Each structure stands twice: as structure tokens, then as C-alpha cells.
């Protein structure tokens, strides 16, 4: 388990002090993908770098399996690795296999383990065929996949993923998500930051939301969406709707404490959309039918994490503004 307690990181630049992380308390248990979402340049990367021993916190503590990175950095570094998306941090003059071998030596991976592991990682990221090619000749995506393999070379107990799918092609990003889910299922602790909220929703068992370096909220994606007043959107198509139907919908929405959206589709059909936290699809259709309308389509959209984060973001802006 990686645990932090009241983590704080200040950067001094001349006279000004910028607080990048402010009192964060996190837990990244093994066997789960933990999400870290941020608003307003929130200090996600700073947090990840602190966990990766690249930055030293100004105050607060970090424990990696009870180890203190400040006291025992080597042991901690053996247990973790970091993959930052969008950057190709590998050596251009070496081949894919040589890059992995090189980092394997830095991590002191035993020889008998390293060979098979390199083969496996190359297969994992689909670079088996390009293993002997120098990275200079790789495409951007290939180099990025190699850097993902590099991040797994020491078989880390904890994997820190900073925007890992940034800039990857969609199919490769999908495969990477599968791999991440699989790694967590096999017992690794994973910390994931991503701009793609669908990715976080799909993978993470628990999500921390931070803003301006401060903890805003946390929970499972489902909890977060529920707690931030996630609204279901009900959309009903009513062909040839009369003014009575429109009046009935408007009145219904007013009673439910919301506003109904009324649009005309291309064929003249009325498209009604109502957002509400509760189960309103039934009562809404009853109201429409009661006013003499007929239903041609009904669609209910569940609230997404994205909606929740956007709502949180708006709230955060209100607070700071």
C-alpha cells in the first residue's frame, strides 16, 4: 500500500511561493486502479513525482509498503515505476530490446528473469517485430509503447501512470486500458491520472479529485456521480405533438423543479428532454400520453463521471471566484 499523509509541496521561485500540493492524504492499495483527477492544473503530476521519489515533499509523509522514500529510496525505487504519456523517454540510438535491457540493468533485474521479461513486454506492447530496430526509426506511437514497456521492466508493485494514453491511437489506448485492468487484477497497485474521464470511469475502483493541490472529494466513480448531483437525461420524441402536450410537459417539469427542453426535429416531431436526479422517465411519459401525445422514442442517459467533474469544476470556480 502506498499511503500519504498531509502531503504538501511548495515551489519557491524568488520571493513567490507556489503551493502545488496542499494537504493531500491518499491511499493506493495493491490490486486496484486508483484514479487521480484534477481541476485547474491541480498538482497531479507533482503528486505523482513525489510518489516516484523524484520530488521531496515540503511536509507530510509518504509510505510505500511501510518504507519511507526519504530514508530508503533504493528499496522504494525497486517497487515503483512511472509511465508518463505523451513523452518518448527512451534512447533513440538503441534498439527497442536494448532500451529495455539497459533499464533492466539499472533496476538490477536478474539475468534469468530479464530475457523472458523483455520478450514478454515487447509482445505486450506489440513491438516484437520491431525489437531489433533502433528507436530513431520508430513512429511516435511505437516509441511511446516502448516507454510503457520500460515502465514495467522492474515488474513494479506499484505503477504510477501519468496520462498514459495521451497521444496514443485509439486501439492501442484501448489495449493499454485492458493491460492496466489486468495488472491491477493481478495485484499491482496502480495510480492513474488521465484527461479521458471515460478511461478513469472504466478502470478506477476509487477516484480522488483534487483542485489547486487540495483534496476536493473522493469515492468510486458511481459514488462521485451520485454525490455531485448527477442528472439522468430523459429524451422523448413525440410526433405531431399538440400545444397541449407542450403545456403538459412544461407544467410537469416545473412541478419536478427543473426545466424541459423543447425542440422540433427535422420531421416536425417534438423532442422533449428533461434532466433530473430522480426516476422521471415514467411520470414524464404518463404526462405526455395523458395530454394526448404518442411516443416514438424514449432514451435515458445515465449520469457520467464527466458530468460530475464538470459540476465540481463549476463549483470550484465559484468558490475560488
Amino acid at each position, binding site marked *: 500500500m502506498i499511503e500519504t499523509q498531509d502531503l504538501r509541496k511548495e*515551489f*519557491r521561485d524568488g520571493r513567490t511561493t507556489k503551493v502545488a500540493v496542499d494537504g493531500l492524504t491518499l491511499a493506493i492499495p495493491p490490486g486496484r486502479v486508483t484514479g487521480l483527477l484534477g481541476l485547474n492544473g491541480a498538482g497531479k503530476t*507533482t503528486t505523482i*513525482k513525489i510518489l*516516484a*521519489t*523524484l*520530488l*521531496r515533499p515540503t511536509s507530510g509523509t509518504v509510505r510505500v509498503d511501510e518504507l519511507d522514500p526519504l530514508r530508503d*529510496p*533504493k*528499496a522504494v*525505487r*525497486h*517497487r515503483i*515505476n*512511472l509511465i508518463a504519456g505523451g*513523452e518518448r*523517454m*527512451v*534512447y533513440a*540510438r*538503441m534498439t527497442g530490446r*536494448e532500451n529495455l*535491457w*539497459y*533499464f533492466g*540493468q*539499472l*533496476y*538490477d*533485474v*536478474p539475468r534469468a*528473469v530479464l530475457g*523472458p*521479461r523483455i520478450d*514478454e*513486454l515487447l*509482445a*505486450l*506492447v*506489440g513491438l516484437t517485430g520491431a525489437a531489433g530496430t*533502433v528507436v530513431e526509426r520508430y513512429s511516435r506511437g511505437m516509441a511511446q*509503447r516502448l516507454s510503457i514497456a*520500460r515502465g*514495467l521492466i*522492474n*515488474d513494479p*508493485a506499484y505503477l504510477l501512470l501519468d496520462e498514459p494514453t495521451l497521444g496514443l491511437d485509439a486501439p*492501442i489506448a484501448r*489495449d*493499454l486500458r*485492458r*493491460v492496466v485492468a*489486468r*495488472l491491477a487484477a*493481478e*495485484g*499491482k497497485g496502480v495510480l492513474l491520472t488521465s484527461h479521458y474521464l471515460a478511461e478513469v470511469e472504466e478502470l478506477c475502483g476509487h477516484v480522488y479529485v483534487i483542485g489547486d493541490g487540495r483534496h476536493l472529494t473522493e469515492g468510486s466513480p458511481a459514488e462521485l456521480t451520485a454525490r455531485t448531483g448527477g442528472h439522468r437525461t430523459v429524451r422523448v420524441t413525440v410526433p405531431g405533438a399538440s400545444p397541449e402536450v407542450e403545456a403538459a410537459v412544461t407544467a410537469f417539469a416545473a412541478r419536478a423543479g427543473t426545466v424541459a427542453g423543447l425542440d422540433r426535429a427535422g420531421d416536425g416531431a417534438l423532442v422533449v428532454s428533461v434532466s433530473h436526479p430522480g426516476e422521471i422517465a415514467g411520470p414524464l411519459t404518463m404526462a405526455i400520453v395523458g395530454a394526448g401525445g404518442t411516443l416514438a422514442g424514449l432514451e435515458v442517459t445515465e449520469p457520467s463521471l464527466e458530468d460530475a467533474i464538470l459540476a465540481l469544476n463549476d463549483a470550484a470556480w465559484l468558490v475560488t471566484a
Partner: protein
Amino acid sequence: MTDRCLACSLTPEAEPVEHRRAQAGGGLRHTAKVFRAEALKQHRRVFGSRLVVFSMLVWPLMQLAATYYTVRPLAATPGIAGRWPLAADPERLLAFLATGALGFTFFFSLVQSAWHFSFERVTGTLELLFLSPAGRLAIVVGNGFGALVQNVWLFACFMVALFTALDVVHVAHPAMYAVVFLALLVPAVAWGAFLNSLLIFSRDSAFLYTLLDDPMWFAAGVRLPLFALPVWIRVFGSVLPLTGSLAVVRGALLDGRTIGELAPTLLGLGALTVLLTLGAVAALRLGEANAQRTGRLRLF
């Protein structure tokens, strides 16, 4: 990308072998691994193109020829045997300048490799080195050693052939060849480690690079005997390990000095090597600590 077969060796057991090994120690073996890894990295960097033979052999030879022709009109003057006996014989003068070129190639190749190392800060790989548990000193020493061996072997072989052809080498004892070899290699590696440590945290590595090119050959007596230099330049030159290395190489090979006669120079060279290594350790500690505090991989 496929996720097949992930379980076979990626997670063979609850705690991977290397974690336990790290805890059990094994520092030397790990250091040896880092050395080998850095050697491969340097090999790929240096031999990325076949044109490398220019910088390894052709450049130093052209430079040596130009220097010889420039200095020759001064040596072929009346009374040279009194001012500088060695220069009275054109072949020995060439050998003197050739030893200078060889020593300079040793030490300057490390300036170059350090300069290249400083680019790892820009490409982001330096951060990966600090992410790893590998010993930092092992990395910078291994990097310097790898660069040195691969940059100088060709020119060194050529120089051995040249000295044999000129028939100017007269050593006091065959073991002096070993002394010469070590007097070049060991301080050079320490010099490389020091420069690597300094340059990876330096804001303006280009400046240090320039500073260590021309002033180094000038002050270390690469192209002139030390007695020709004013005292203040000799003082500056004495902090450069190249100066001591060249004194040993020339003393042993060209003047037939014994180890006893060279002992003071060797001691000074040893002290300088220790200082450079300590300097490297300090620069690495300060640099990494500073990077952890500021998030910037810079020392000054």
C-alpha cells in the same frame, strides 16, 4: 498490443526477485551491471554512424600534423639543444606532441561525453535514471568509462604504432607501460565522472564545454613544454588531471624515468583523482537534492 501471457513472468510471485535482492545488498554486482549498461549506451551513441572514425582518428591526426608544422620552425633554431634538448630531434618532438594529442584525446573525449550526457536532462531520460534504484556514481563513472574506451581505442592503437615506427620510446622498466596506462586511464575516468555530474546539473553546459577545450590544451602543456608557460598558467594547469597524466606519460616513455622519479607526480595525480571523485559525489548529491526540492534538474 496484446495482454496475453501477462501472468507468466511479470508477476511470478508476490514479491519479485529483484526486490529481495536489493534488500540483500549486492551493490558491487549491481554497479557492474550499470557499467555494462552504460557502456552499451555509449557504444550506440558513439557508433551510431560510421563517420565516427573522423572524430576518433582523422581529427586528432590532422590536429597533430598542424601543431607539429607550427612548432617546427621554433625547434629548428640554433641552440635548441640547450633550451629544449628533446626538440633537437624532430622525431622526438613529434613524439612529444603525439603524447600530448593522445592525452588530450583521453580527457577531451570525456568532456564531449559529459556534454552529451547533459542532453539527457533535455530528453527526459535523466529523470528515468533518477527514478531507478541504480547508484548515481556508478552511472556517471560507467558513462565516462564507456565513452573513454570507445572514443580513444583507435587513436591509442595508432599512437602505439607511431611510437614503434619512430623508435623513440625508452622505458626504465617494462612495468612502466602499465604505469603509463593507469596514469592516463584512472584520472581520466574520475575526470569524466566529475564532468558528468557537473554538466547534468549545469544550466549552461555549452559554456563549460568551450572552457574545457582550448584552455585545457593550452594550460596542460599539450602542445608546449610546461617550462614555456608562465607560472600563473602552470598553476591553473596543475588542477587539470591531464597535466599530471602527461607528465607521467612523457616522463616514462620519452625520458625513461623510473617510478621513483615520477612518484611525486603520481601522488599528486592520485590526490587529484580522489578529489574529482569526491566532487562528483557532492555534485550528484546536491544536484539530486536540489531537483527533488525545486523540480528542476539544475544545480546552478
